[in-house]
């Protein structure tokens, strides 16, 4: 290499090094943030079991939530099962409510009327994503709660109302990801089915949906992740009673709703505060599990041909 050429390259290399340093620092910052966040929640959450002396089993399976008091053996009454049950109930039920609508509209958008779908429907669902959760909560409080009370009985506050509000909130996520999944099915599959004399419905039910199933499952689990972590809107309609839910219409509580209602009132280092961190840790672990499941599905569904 000529000497002049080498000289001309040098400043370029310096720029590249600087670029590497800047982008690398960004990556490092994000990675450190994520890891310290997990570490912090874990260390605080585990304090309940290490310093406060609560057995892990009584936290996970206990049904009495009253962290200010101790039971006969001097162990704090921090049974988290009511909240864990509440969180899973609203999550599963909201997905059950949202899925048929999401799937139905996704099929309409991709298979029936793509023009309307991309021009009108998708912008509309994106609008739904942008609505703040407090607005959903307010609508839930003023409309969903009285409505469920009118036909399901009870106070109207409870898992049912929470699930309906959550279903609205996760609908756009599940819908748009289902649209992507159905759209990703190669046209040649549909051609093959039509070429065999299958009707549109047979093609959708037996070729398109089975081929899109891993993508649809991912959509559902991402919706579940969102539902599981949503706090404000749920807290406004769920009733906030830390008891094992016996019916869909009795007041209940979720992990998130208990954290948001209590965190501001309890001093750092108290048993109550520690155990709220433990609830947060449960939330965090569940989110990680959901994301892990999505990755596993992604890897399994990848060789689609």
């Amino acid at each position: 290499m000529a000497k002049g050429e080498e000289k001309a390259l040098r400043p370029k290399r310096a720029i590249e090094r600087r670029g590497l340093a800047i982008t690398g620092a960004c990556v490092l910052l994000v990675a450190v943030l994520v890891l310290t966040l997990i570490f912090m929640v874990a260390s605080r959450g585990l304090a309940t079991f290490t310093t406060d002396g609560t057995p892990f089993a009584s936290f996970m399976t206990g049904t009495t939530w009253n962290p200010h008091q101790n039971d006969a053996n001097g162990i704090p009454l921090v049974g988290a099962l009511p909240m864990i049950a509440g969180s899973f109930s609203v999550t599963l039920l909201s997905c059950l409510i949202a899925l048929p609508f999401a799937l139905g509209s996704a099929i309409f958008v991709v298979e029936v009327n793509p023009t309307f779908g991309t021009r009108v429907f998708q912008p509309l669902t994106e609008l739904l994503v942008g609505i703040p959760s407090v607005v959903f909560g307010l609508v839930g409080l003023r409309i969903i709660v009285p409505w469920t009370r009118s036909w399901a009985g009870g106070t109207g506050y409870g898992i049912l109302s929470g699930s309906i509000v959550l279903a609205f909130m996760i609908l756009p996520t599940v819908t748009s990801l289902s649209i992507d999944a159905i759209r990703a099915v190669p046209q040649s599959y549909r051609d093959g089915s039509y070429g065999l004399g299958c009707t549109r419905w047979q093609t959708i039910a037996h070729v398109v949906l089975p081929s899109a199933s891993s993508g649809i499952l991912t959509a559902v689990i991402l919706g579940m992740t969102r539902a599981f972590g949503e706090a404000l809107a749920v807290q406004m309609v769920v009733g906030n009673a830390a008891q094992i839910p016996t019916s869909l219409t009795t007041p209940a509580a979720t992990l998130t709703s208990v954290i948001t209602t209590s965190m501001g009132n309890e001093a750092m280092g108290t048993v109550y505060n520690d155990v709220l961190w433990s609830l947060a840790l449960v939330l965090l672990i569940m989110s990680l599990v959901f994301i892990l499941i999505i990755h596993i599905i992604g890897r399994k569904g990848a060789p689609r041909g």
Partner: protein
Amino acid sequence: MTPINQGPVSTRPATGEGDAADLRSVILETRDVTVTYGTHEALHPTSLAFAAGEVTSLIGPSGCGKSTYLRSINLMNREIEGCKVGGQVIYRGQDVNAPGVDLFELRKHIGMVFQQPNPFHKSIYENVAFAPRRHGITKKSDLDQLVEESLRAAAIWDEVKDKLSESGFALSGGQQQRLCIARTLAMHPDIVLMDEPCSALDPISTFAVEETIRSMASRGICTIIVTHNMEQAARVSDRCAFFLLGEMVETGVTAEMFANPSDQRLDDYLTGRFG
């Protein structure tokens, strides 16, 4: 919905063709079939007749309208938005390019094999049993028999008989294409349309598919195959039709056409002066 005619094929001279002398049992005929996308006529009026047990190849350069023509026979073009098929497609004496004709019923009799092998994301068995299941065959023993018979007819049975429950994607490209042929044969079609079935395959797989096509013809199936490969057209087809720029230029018996092209454009194409 008008039911699809199950009547016998007519034995009469082929219309719109030069060699009207030979009597062929015409099963399918197109009369002035056109295909338009919006205002663009992709296929000018085309009239051809096809007989049972005969292999016809449609040849011509890319974009000449041969695939478009093929896809208008089973009215697959109707699945494309903005596409219109004009003229008459006469299957067993009935015009099927008419309102009220049950397309899905028609496609049970006119099967189709595509350019890219497109097995479903299912097991080999389920790929073949797919169409019969949708069309009402549910008995396990009937399906078993149909699957074996179809795989044998597509000359792939010996290669897959021990792994029927494995995914269709586990097969090689050539095997996948023969699986797609088996899937089509499971409907017992009268006519099989093939859109460049070997363009994605290696020579050995191509040979296997060509063998399959010949054996289908010997069992009375009318096969219409689009191909870019002149040698393939010469090897497998009894008759041939040459398309250019959306127009059907010349048709006749393959051997005669290749030896003695009457149209200058076909002569040019065969000698490689264009295309």
